[in-house]
């Protein structure tokens, strides 16, 4: 890698980027979940004990049985936990400060991790109602939901 620029003193520094362009197979369940997101739909899956899991899992978390009982879930729900990201990194979903939040969507019994766009941390709280902000151009990925927004 080429070196460039000088650090304090006499020591050189250079940026060195290591990148792996992986493509992952998502499997049948996340594949269907992503396909739904592309169509602006969110689906969960019913576990053997009746709870709805969203994002869906391929197997029952308690018994390990294969799951196939799909359930529509709303694109709005409630924040169950969150943390504020004051300085987003380049890989983060939003360029401006935002919250990572666990969001239990209406119709689901489990929470999903996603970003909540908010102007400041005092606009976010546990129990707050949020709704998905969908991308206009969707490709079948979790980022088809740009983020969630607090709704009053």
């Amino acid at each position, binding site marked *: 890698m080429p070196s460039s620029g000088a650090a304090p003193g006499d020591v050189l520094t*250079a940026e060195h980027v290591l990148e792996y362009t992986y493509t992952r197979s998502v499997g049948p369940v996340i594949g269907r979940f992503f396909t739904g997101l592309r169509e602006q739909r969110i689906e969960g899956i019913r576990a053997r004990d009746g709870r709805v899991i969203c994002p869906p899992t391929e197997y029952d978390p308690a018994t390990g049985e294969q799951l196939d009982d799909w359930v529509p879930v709303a694109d709005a729900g409630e924040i169950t936990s969150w943390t504020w990201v004051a300085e987003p990194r380049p890989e983060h979903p939003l360029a401006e400060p935002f919250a990572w939040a666990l969001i239990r969507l209406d119709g689901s019994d489990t929470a999903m991790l996603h970003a909540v766009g908010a102007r400041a941390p005092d606009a976010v709280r546990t129990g707050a109602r949020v709704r998905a902000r969908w991308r206009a151009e969707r490709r079948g990925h979790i980022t088809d939901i740009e983020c969630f927004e607090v709704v009053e």
Partner: protein
Amino acid sequence: MSEAAAPESVTMMDAPIRLTYSYTPGVAQSEFLRALTERRILGQRCSTCEQVYVPPRGMCARDGIALEGTFELPDTGVVSGFCIVNIPFAGQAVECPYVSASITFDGADIPIFHLVQEIDPAAVHVGMRVQAVWSEEPQPSMQTIRYFRPLEAADA
């Protein structure tokens, strides 16, 4: 990635991993890299074992002592090992086949790795004498030496 209107189910996702490092070569090698911009090769000699390090490392790996001061070596050396690369890979800078060699500068005990060009790869051999071919755009980088070319003088 699937198009928005495509009817097929999603089966794959892009999952790139990108790691951005800030790399420092340290004090001794910074001096070495800067000297390259003036077409000078710097080394360091261990006061205990007398090994000459090129590039200088600021310490002796054998004796574990700090080394101070550098001295200049010629830009000629000997091929002490080599590999003919025939298989292309992503990010390759040179066309196959090419020779990647271990080159020990005259007066040094530690080889560096660099390209050997201006010669049929099949003619490269251990002991072959070579000289650095310098870039017209010097930077504090090993790429300031573009490659090594064979010296017409007798082999070592």
